[in-house]
Every structure is written in C-alpha cells, then in structure tokens.
C-alpha cells in the first residue's frame, strides 16, 4: 500500500486489492494499519510520479484519438467521436484500449458513454461497458450516490433522505433538489445522465507559439529540411520578439507521410531568439542522435513549437561582463547539445568539514554559477592548499611532537624536508554516519620547510584515544 503524510500522521493513501479485502482503507494511519497487520508492506506515495506516468499513458492514447484528457488523478477521458471506425466499432476500440494497456501492465476499467461524466461515473462506480447511443440516463440510473462526487456532507444528506441511486434522484422534481443541494451537484447529475453536453479539455499543453509548414509533396532532402526549420525558427523569433520574450525550450515536429511522428527538442540555458544559435543546437542534436531521423517516404509537414519562454529585453551588448557570461552560457549550451547534459560538469562547493569532499562536480545544467565559495577571513593565510592530492600521499615522519604536535621533519618521495615553521593542528573528525569510510580523526598542519616550500600534511588517528601508531600523509601543496 502507499502512504502519505497528512494531518500529522502517516496515513494510507492507496491500498492493494488484498489489503482492501483485509479491511484496510485509505485514510487509516499507518501505525493503526500495522497494529492490525504487522507485516504489511508500505511505500511512500509519489503523486508527482503518478501523474507523470498518467500523462505518459495519455500520450500513448494519442493513437486512438487526439482528444485525451485527465480524469482526476487516476483516470483518462478519451473523446472517440469519429475514431471508432478504424478499430472495428466501439467494442473493438474499447477492447484495443484495454488490451493495449494490459500489455503495459495496467488493469483497466473502461466504459463508453455519451458524455464524459457518464463514462467516467460508469467506469468508476458501475459495470456497464458500452452505453448505446442516447441511453445514458437509463444506464446511469443504477449508479450509487457517491458517483455524484458531491462530498461527504451532501452524499450523507441524500442518503438520509432515503435515496440510494441516481435514478432515485432523477425521478424527483428538480426544483425540490435545487432548493436543497448546490448547483455543482445538480450539474454533475445532469451531465452523468446525459442531459447536458460537456467538452474535454485536451491534455497536450498549447505551445507558447508555434509555426507550421505543410508540403504539397513529401520532402526528404536534408538541406531543404534545414532551410524550412530555419524559416520556421525565424517566424517564431519574430513572434517572440513581439512578446519581448526569448525561448528556453524549442521543439521541432517531423510528420512523416506514413503517420509516424518524430519530435526533437532542444533547450537553451538563457532565453534566446537567436535563430542561428537554435539552429546550430538542432543541428548538433541531430548529428548526435543515436537513432537518426529517417525521412522514409518523406515528411509532409513540419512544426516548430516554442514550449517555454522567459522575458528577454533588447540587451545592451556593449557590457563586457555580460558578453563574457553569455559566451560561457552559449558554450555550455552547445557542449550539452553535443555531448549530453551529464557529460558537461561544473564544480560547486559542498558544505562539509572533510577537505576532499568540499568540492563536487555536478552537471552544468543543474547550476547557474551562483554558488558562493567560502572566502578566507581577511588577514588569515589560506586554510586550504591550491593543489590537493587524491589520494593523499603517505609520508614518513621520524619524529613529531607528542601527542598532537607537528613533525620536526618528514620524508616525501625519498626527499627529507626539515620543518622550520608549522601551524596547527586543525582537527577534523571523520563523518561517523558514512558507513565504510574514514574512521580516524585527522590533525592537519600547515608546514614550511627549510627551502620555503609549504605543505599541508596530516596525522591520521589521535594518539592514545584512537591509535597507538598514527600515520602521516601529505594532502596538498600551497603555492
């Protein structure tokens, strides 16, 4: 079962069929559920992933109809008007949907009715598979009151009045009901029983702006395609300029004559309407595709959609700094387009005492270069060296001050260094919560040898408290 935190407790959000048969229901606290069935398996609900999955399933449904809409967080509505012919009638279409989804690993309840509300109510609360044309009122009359989804208070009031089904309600005078229940409930009742028409709100978000070109003859020549893409981009750029915006996400759609659709998206790090730049990104993207775009019999249409935008005002390009920054951002964009987002990395500071972990490299797209690096206190010598060894280099220390002082001299790469000045220790204890890593405390020293070279060395292990024989390492070099 899935759990979710609400009202100060971890509660069940959804239960499996077996759990439901054992009397568990959403809303129960996990602790209570465990008290009843100690060995139940619970995972945290991920509503975001669920809705993502549902929207992917909606895209998959594109094959049946272009008009697909979400129905709550666990349903899909398909407007199949005029689509049934291809699938051998309504029953065939319904079957194809169910079987297709079953192959994807879903169990589906599906109903086909005259209005979206009727279909949704029947799928959720009824058992009718297909409602004959114009028969919605009769088909839905046996549905229970919860199908109205009117909230607990109203549903209870209806039940207390002796109603059991939607049919009981439709027999009543609408005036008597209207005097007692809110308009939303009445509307839902009319919609389920097919008295009121409704439209779907289709799923795919409308792009911010979009340019389309249809061709009389299918095109397959790469040069021609690029020219058309350029033209589309220019028309989109004009559009963007009028809005005072730049695009952040662009998508090109290639519609093949045989019905296959290929969509290709690029992103820019900063809002842009620079046609040449975006075109270059598309070109790099295409040349780096593992599965190149195959024109087959040629394309009969192309679209360019700008999916996301941000304000972009005409820039004063004479500021050096801005230019340099945009130069770097452009470079990052181009490198990402070429090598993929994971391959372009950037250093960011990490909040930890452990020196070797204080810097991390992360994908450049995830950062915007805004990180602040710790700056040394004024007047203080640098605390960390310019160069750090990974792994630290073992050194040989013949003698050191007892118990936690610096060494008098040390041998590194067979050369003996006499320590003339030392400062420390800086004591850094291991991160005890990391399993299987460093377990000993380090005492770091900044030392200078007789030739004026400065080293960053440490003793691993506290004498007495942690070990009898501490070992020494060179971790870095100051300039």
């Amino acid at each position, binding site marked *: 079962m899935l759990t979710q935190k609400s009202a100060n407790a971890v509660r069940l959000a959804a239960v499996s069929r077996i759990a439901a048969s054992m009397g568990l229901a959403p809303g129960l606290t996990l602790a209570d559920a465990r008290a009843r069935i100690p*060995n139940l398996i619970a995972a945290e609900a991920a509503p975001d992933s669920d809705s993502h999955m549902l929207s992917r399933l909606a895209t998959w449904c594109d094959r049946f109809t272009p008009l697909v809409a979400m129905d709550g967080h666990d349903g899909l509505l398909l407007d199949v008007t005029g689509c049934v012919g291809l699938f051998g009638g309504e029953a065939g279409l319904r079957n194809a949907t169910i079987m297709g989804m079953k192959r994807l690993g879903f169990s589906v309840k599906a109903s086909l009715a005259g209005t979206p509300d009727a279909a949704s109510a029947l799928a959720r609360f009824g058992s009718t598979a297909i409602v004959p044309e114009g028969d919605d009122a009769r088909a839905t009359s046996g549905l229970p009151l919860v199908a109205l989804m009117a909230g607990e208070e109203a549903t209870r009031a209806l*039940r207390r009045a002796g109603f059991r089904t939607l049919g009981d309600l439709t027999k009543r005078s609408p005036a008597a009901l209207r005097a007692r229940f809110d308009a939303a409930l009445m509307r839902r009742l009319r919609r389920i029983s097919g008295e009121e028409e409704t439209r779907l709100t289709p799923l795919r978000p409308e792009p911010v702006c979009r340019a389309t070109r249809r061709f009389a003859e299918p095109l397959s020549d790469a040069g021609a395609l690029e020219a058309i893409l350029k033209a589309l981009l220019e028309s989109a750029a004009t559009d963007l300029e009028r809005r005072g915006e730049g695009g952040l996400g662009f998508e090109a759609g290639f519609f093949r004559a045989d019905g296959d659709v290929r969509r290709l998206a690029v992103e820019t790090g900063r809002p842009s309407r620079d046609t040449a730049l975006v075109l270059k990104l598309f070109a790099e993207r295409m040349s780096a595709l593992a599965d190149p775009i195959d024109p087959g019999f040629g394309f009969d249409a192309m679209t360019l959609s700008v999916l996301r935008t941000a304000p972009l005002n005409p820039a004063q390009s004479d500021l050096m700094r801005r230019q340099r920054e945009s130069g770097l951002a452009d470079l990052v964009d181009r490198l990402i387009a070429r090598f993929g987002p994971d391959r372009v990395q950037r250093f960011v500071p990490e909040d930890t005492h452990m020196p070797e972990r204080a810097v991390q490299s992360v994908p450049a797209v995830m950062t915007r270069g805004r990180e602040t690096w710790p700056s040394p206190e004024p007047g203080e010598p640098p605390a960390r060296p310019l160069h750090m060894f990974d792994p630290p280099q073992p050194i040989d220390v013949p003698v050191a001050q007892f118990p936690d002082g610096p060494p008098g001299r040390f041998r590194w790469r067979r050369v003996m260094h006499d320590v003339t000045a030392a400062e*420390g220790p800086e004591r850094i204890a291991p991160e005890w919560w990391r399993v299987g890593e460093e377990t000993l405390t380090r005492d770091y020293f900044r030392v200078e040898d007789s030739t004026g070279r400065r080293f960053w060395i440490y003793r691993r292990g506290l004498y007495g408290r942690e070990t009898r024989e501490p070992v020494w390492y060179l971790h870095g070099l100051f300039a």
Partner: protein
Amino acid sequence: MTRFAEMAAATNYSFLRGASSPQDMVLTSLLLGHEGIGIADRNTVSGVVRAYATLCDLREEGLPGQEKIREGGSPGEYRWQAHPAEEVLDAGAVKAAAMKFKLAVGTRFVFADGTPDIVAYPENRQGWARICRLLTQGNLRGKKGACILRLGDLTADASHLLLILMPSASLPSRALLAELSEAAPGALWLGVRMARNGRDRRRLAALARVAAPFRVPLLATNDALYAEPGARDLQDVMTCIREGATITEAGRRLEANAERHLLKPSEMARLFADAPHAVDESADLLARIDFSLEQLKYEYPDEPVPPGWEAQAWLEKLTWDCARMRYPDGIPGKVVGLLEQELALIKELQYARYFLTIYDLVRFAANERILCQGRGSAANSAVCYVLGITAIDPSTHEVLFARFISTERKEPPDIDVDFEHERREEVIQHIYGKYGRHRAGIAATVISYRPRSAIRDVGKALGLSDDVTARIAGLQWGSWGGDIPSAQVAQAGLDPENPMIARAVELARRLMGFPRHLSQHVGGFVLARGRLDEMVPIGNAAMDKRTFIEWNKDDIDALGLMKVDVLALGMLTCIRKAFDLMAQHEDRSLQLYDVPQDDTATYDMLCKGDSIGVFQVESRAQINMLPRLKPRALYDLVVQVAIVRPGPIQGNMVHPYLKRRSGEESVVYPAPAPEHGPADELHQVLGKTMGVPLFQEQAMRLAIVAAKFTDAEANGLRRAMATFRNVGTIHRFERKFVEGMASRGYDREFAERCFEQIKGFGSYGFPESHAASFAQLAYVSSWIKCHHPAAFACALLNSQPMGFYAPAQIVRDAIEHGVLVRPVDVNASCWDNTLEVDAPGAKPALRLGFRQIDGFSESWGAKIAETREVSYHEIERMQRLTGIPGRAMRLLADADAFRSLQLDRREALWAVRRLPDDAALPLFASSAAQELGEEEDAHLPTMALGEHIVADYQMTRLSLKGHPMQLLRARLKAERILSCAEVNDAKDGTRVRVAGLVLVRQRPGNGNAIFMTLEDESGVVNALLWARQFEQFRRAVMMARLMVVTGRIQRSKENVVHLMAEHIEERNEALDGLSDAHRTAIELTRADEFAHPQIPRGRHPRDARVVVKSRDFH
C-alpha cells in the same frame, strides 16, 4: 597539580545543544580532578538544580543518584535508572573529592543583538537575584520558550556578577570590551578556547592583545558541550534536530571534531602553555563565587495573617473556631488531643503561615462554591480536617500526623488540594491576583525525549524514511518502556542488524530522557514572601495568563521550597453538578461532608459490582474486585481503591487478604522468633488489614519494626521510593530488609514478598491516607448514584470528558437504574443535560442536552433555550427566531431533535436543507418571512429502525431507540450465537459463542492477557484472550467493532464471569449493513488502549495521575 575548573559547561538543558546530563557533567568533572565546575546553559538555569542535587548525592553517598526517566505523558510515568558508573566508582574517594568540589551555577546569556555570548555567575545572593531578574526580563519579552536579551539589559546593572565574554569567531570589539569592563569592573574575563581549528596559538595571542589595554584577564575554557568525546555523534544529531536538517546536509553547522568535552587539568595546562595564567584564572573565578543554591531559603508569604496577629496565634484561633463548628456537639477528646499535639509541632517548626496559606485557598474556593478536597498525607492531619482542607474525620479514623510532618524530616509540609476541574482556573487566577505574578509561579514540567519522540527525531536526522521511522516509533505496546529491544525492531519488519537502523535505535536510546523544552506543570504553585523572580527566572506559558518558573517539582523538592498543588479533579465537578441538580429538582441540599455515611443500600450496590461512573472503582479490574471484597464500610473502600495496584499485586498480597476477609483463611500475624521480640510486634502495624500489608506506610513500618531499620535507613528507603533525590537505588535496601527480617525469624518468603511490594510501591505507591481521601469521594459518588441516579448520570454527562465510560454506557446504566431518559428535542433540551420533574415529588427524568450532539456549539444551544418561550412550531420560524445557522439546524434534524414538531429525522432533514446557510440579517428579518414557498409533500420513504439507530450513534454516540445488536439478534440466533446476558448466566465451563460491540481492549500489567469488553442489548461480557493466541487473531482483535468470541465460561465463586476466548472473529460488515448510509460509529470507551494509545498500558490517565501524587510527595 594544575588548578582548573571548566567554567563554561553546558548541559542538555541547553536544549538540543548540550549532549550530557548535568549529572554526567558534574560527575565527570569531579573524576577528572577539577576544582569545580560552572554550569551555564543558554539563557536558562533550569538544569542547575540537577547538578546541585547530584553533588549533594555524591557528598552523602559517594554515588550519583538515580536518574528519573520519563515514560509517559501523564504525571508520574517515569522510572528510575541507576547511573551506569555506579558499579565502578570508589564511593569513599568520590565522597572525599565531592566535599572539596565546588559547583558554580550561572547562565550563558545569548543575546538577540549580535553580542557574543556572555557566561555569568553570581558573586553572591544578590548576583543570583540579578541573573534571575535578567532572564525573567528576557523570557517575558519573548514568546513561549524564547528569551530575548540585549547587551544593554546586562550592562544596565552588572553588579555582583562575574562575567566571561565568550568571543565568536571574530575578535571582540574594543567598544564591547570597554562597555563590559566598565559595567563589571574587575569582574570580567575573556574566555579562550583551544578550538583545534589550525590557528589556536595566533588566536590566543590576538585575544591577549585585545584584552590587555582593558586589563581583562584571559580565562581558559573548553566551552564544553558534553562530558566525554564519545558524545559527539549524539551532539551532531541534536544539531540536526535543532536545524531541521539531515546529517548529510548539515555540513559545517556540525562541529568539526569531538573536542568540546571536559578536559583533564593537565591537558588544559598543556594546551595553554603559552598562557598558563589563563588556566589559573578559572580557579580564581570559581573561588570568588560565594553563592550556592542552599541559600535560597524559603520564606512563607505574610498575606494570610491579619494585622496585629502572630501567625501561630492566628492559626490556633482559627483551628479552635473551626473545630467548634465542625463538632457542634463538642469537640471529641481524641480530636482535642490531636489538635494540641499538631499545633505544638507546627509551632516548633514554624509552619503556621504555610497552613494559613492553604486555608486561604480553601476558603476562597468555599466562598466561590467550588468543591475542593485535600489529598495525600495531609489527610493525616486533624488541623487540616477542621480547617476544611481534607475530609478524613480524625474522630472516626486513625490519623498519624507524623506521616505528614515530623521533626526529623526537615522538609516543608506538602498539601495537595483537588478542585473541580472546570473551575480550577478561577483558583489559579486568585493566587496570581493575591500574591502577584512576581511572587507566584507555576512549576515547570520538563518535556523530555521518550522512545517515540526520540526515534522520530533521530530517524529524521539520520535521513531514514518516514515509513521506517514510523515503523520503529509505531511499535505497539511496550513502546513506553525505556528501551527499544531488538526483538521489537525485528517484529516491525526491520533488520536490527542493519547499521543505519541499529545506529538510529542506539542514538535514540541515548537521547531518551534528554530534556527537549520546558512546559508548565498542571498545578504546582510556588509562592514566595519576597520576589520570586529573584529566586528563579519566570517565563510565559503557552496558556494565556499563565507564567511559570524554570524549575520543576523535583527541583523545588531538592531545594526545599514551598509549593502548593492546585489540582483538578473531574469527579469533584461531577459531584458539584449532581449536588446542584439535587438541590434544584429534588429539594435536597448537600455538602461533601454531610452525605449520609454507612448507607447500606450504597454498599449493597457496590458489592454487586454496580459501579459504572463511580470515582476510582469503575474500572473493569475494580468492578471484578468489588464482589470479592464486598465493601461494607468506608475503610473497606479505602482498601478497595488501594488493592488493585501494582504494589499489592506485585507483592502477592491480594489473594491472602481476600481469603482472610472471606474467612477462608484465619488471620495470623507474621511473628519473629521468640528470642527476637514479642510475637505480636506486627499487630499494631497490620491490624487494620488482617495481617496483610497493603499500604505503603505499612511496608515502611515493617522495615522499622520487623527488619529493624534505623530511622535514617527507613528514611533512605522512603526517599528511594519517592523523590528524585533518592540516594542509592532501592536494591541497596533489599538485602538489608530481607535478611533483617529473616534473621529475626520471619518467614523469608514473606519478607521477599514484602520487598517486592515495596518495589511495586516504588513505581506506583498508594499510601493509606491517600486512599482514604479517594475512598471518601468514591463513597460520595456511589451514594449519589445509588439514591439519585438521574442526577448522577446527568452530572456525569455534563462533566465529560472524564472517567472510563462513553455516554452510551452512562445512559444505559442510568436506564438500568430506572431513570427515564428522554431524547434531545428542540422544544425541551438545553445545552447541558437536564432533569425534568413532571409532578412534584415524582422521580426526575433525564433530558439529553444539545451538548450530546457532535459538532454542536454551546452558543447555538443557549440561543435555542433562551429564545424558546413556549415552544417552536415550525422550522423556518425557529431559525428566524434563534438566528442560528443552517448548519446548526441540519445537525439538530440529523440528531432527530424535531420530533416535537411532528417531524422525524428524515422529514426534518429534508425540510431544513431548504433553509439558508446563514440566518438572515436583522434588517431583512421581516422581509424574509415569506421567502420559502409551500412545497408539495415529498413522500420520502420511511426510515428503517436500523438506520435511525445508526444515525443516532453517529450524531449523539448513543441511541434511545434501541441497540444496534438487537437488530442482528435473529441472524445471530440462527448462528447459535448467545447474547451477553445468556453468557453471563451460563454454567461454568460451558463453551459458548457471543457477539457484541467492542467497548474496551486492554493489555494490562505484564501483557500476558488481553481483556476485551463486549456489549449488546442485554448487557456486557468480559472476554480474555491469552497473549500467545493474540498473533493469530491480531487483525480481528484490532479491527473489530463487532466481535464474535468463542470460548469457555469461567465463573468464580463470587459469580464473576469471564469468557476465556479461543476464537475471535470480526463482523464489522454486519454492523455496516444495518444502514447502508454510513458506518456505525461505536465509541470505544476512553480506556481502550488501541484507540487511545497515548495512555500507557494498564492504567487510565486519571489513575496514573492519582498514583503519581502519592509518589511525588511522600
């Protein structure tokens, strides 16, 4: 030898920062050879008394006292834990070291204006007053828990203070040093710590440079957060909890290393080789402190003594005046003697003002007609009785004043007074009003980590998922214990060997018992003659109009301050309401003390186990005990309330007592061998309880008389059982006790049993005087229930929530006692439940009030009753007249309260739904008259009885129309399932099946058995399921609202019937089928441990509270 004292030691009272208890800090510091220690927590002194008490223990015993570990939310739920170092310490050496060791108590001021922290110690008593005033000032400025201080507050007057400036990462500014050294000339130090951050020596030099011009000496400290380096991980976790971060993301908010612990003096000397004088300064500062918590001598307030009178003379006058009123026919000679004795002792110990203070409170309550009664050992005082503080009449009961106050126990007396729970706030505000907020404060309660909260916070800090943490935290039963056993971790489906889980459990275990924040105590008041805020800081409580001090009751005890417990007791409210109803409807006016005593009918009723709603003896265990014990006099009730307790049960004293009482066993007194003393030496001790020790006092007397404890030893034992200052653990006395008795010829087994009992008392003691106070209330409530059942039920319902039973059981019980109960109706009900007397002299009927309707508001109910002149005839008009919203009308309709308008629930609901949501504004009231037109008859189908009953339960949690089970009876009969009544009549050993609604599920004591109470239309059945079968039926037990139990009848010779369960089924669906409208809302009684898991097992919270009182203060 280096002289060093850590002068900046934080304890875990620096909430979520310090990772060692005050005990550990003091002990470790002492063992390291410090001159002393300075305890300074962040803007608080709440931990210093613990440190002080520890040092006292070490000086007396050479061993640290036990630590008090909280286990539950209610008062008194704690256990004692011996200090782990106890076994390895050399007591003699520790004692000697402790004598020389000096404890400095102060605080660490943390400022809101960016000033670095300043640790402050009092140079003398005035300095302490200054610290307390400053912290109070900061506390009152902030919201609860926050203390907002600015540098100016301190520098305004820093006289008698010794200050250590603890510089932050940057150097302190010259301006700051100048300001401080001017405010505290010659009393300022600059704290230096070798932080091991790579630049210690340069920083030391820099600080010395900054301080030199101002002649501010450097002072060496390690700014300790814990006693030993091993506490680093716990401290890191506490940082995460405080910052709301997980350990992996906390980063540099954590300390870089494990160095902030107490260091050896030699180590300090080594670290401060560049500035050895800094180490010496710590000892010098310590030597300048001339303040100890001992100096906080309590002085009683003057208020209650009228001008021109000496306190003692006034008390004597009052006592004799009151005594003459109490005994109008002349004060019995016995009482005169007692009063004279007591007054003499009070005079000797100068406690007169204390008695007058309490008397003043009780007088106030009497004038305001608030019922109150003293509890606890004060019941041993004849003075308290005649002054009206307690209710145990010394002329008819044996009282022992020495148990209350004695010369050898140099502790202030302790009187706890219960008031009606709904009106206690009036008493509290009276105290504030009379003594002023600067002189009266409520004691604090330290909210500490308990297993659940510990694992929850640790789990979060370690980044465990909510589910995993919830699994560990949510372990049912036994989660109140001090430990989280591996077996339980495994039982929750987790691997106890998994490093992360093992680590979380281990850290949680260590975090347990750590204070988390302070809260206010329920009613312990501290009163002072002078300014209280110069004794201890005062802060704002979360509750409006309340202020509380930083110390809890143990601290107050340890310092010997005076306190008054102003407690709340629901039963007093109930009795007051019943008295009022009786006066109003039955022409009978009573007070607590003039309820007829020794009433046969009342005792007959109790002997049958008919005690639902009665104070103290209404639990299942008590109901089962009543027919066995057969109480016939008040003293039997005293035994009754005390016997169903861990003490007598653990000591196996219950059965011997019952057997002797029923005459099955002869009364013999254990006796020593003839050469060791007279055979009747225990007659005096055990005479009243037939030779079986039942009360805490008897156990104590046994120690002295039979085991020959000296007074000091007995006192030690008493303290081991009672307060947190107990010296040594109880087991130290075990040998002495058992051997002492055995060597004198007593049966060893008896001696062992007696000591087991003492251990039981140790956790949940119940002394006789206490039992007597409660038995008195138990009797009064039984008498009312017996003779005025309608008033009793009505008062009980109006005092809800209280007691064990839900309204359905209270109403049902009233009906069984012949009370006519009438439903809620808009034309008859008020907000409260009321009595209706149809004809003069007739038995009153109980009319349910609007308060029984879930979700109904008191103002609506009052409005309906007020506006109702004759009666309401029509729904629409009623809403216009009363102006109550549509929602209220719908609730009324759904509660079926329109019957007097000839509308049943369904018709009424249909009608009220047409009403507007809000009553019309007055301006439109008249024009609204015609708003709703006539409507044709709706012809709604008739509502079935089952649906009505279910709806009644949903709305009012009870139904007068019938019992849900009666609707299922035919079906059940076909399955050969018996009714509860049939089961209770069945022969011993018969195998039966019974079905009923589940009222209570409990798993008391050692958890071997689960008790369940089932109810149907004919009565209740008590079923028992052995724990070994529980797993098999866990789901059914936990889920069932309707349960079918198959098992065998076990009937005791007193006719107490138990059903020994063999098989359990859950039949909720039958209940749901009664009305397909909704699930039937059956309310479990408040004693159910599964629906109310916050209640520790086996005990009702009120029981627990009762128990505690006796424990805390004797």
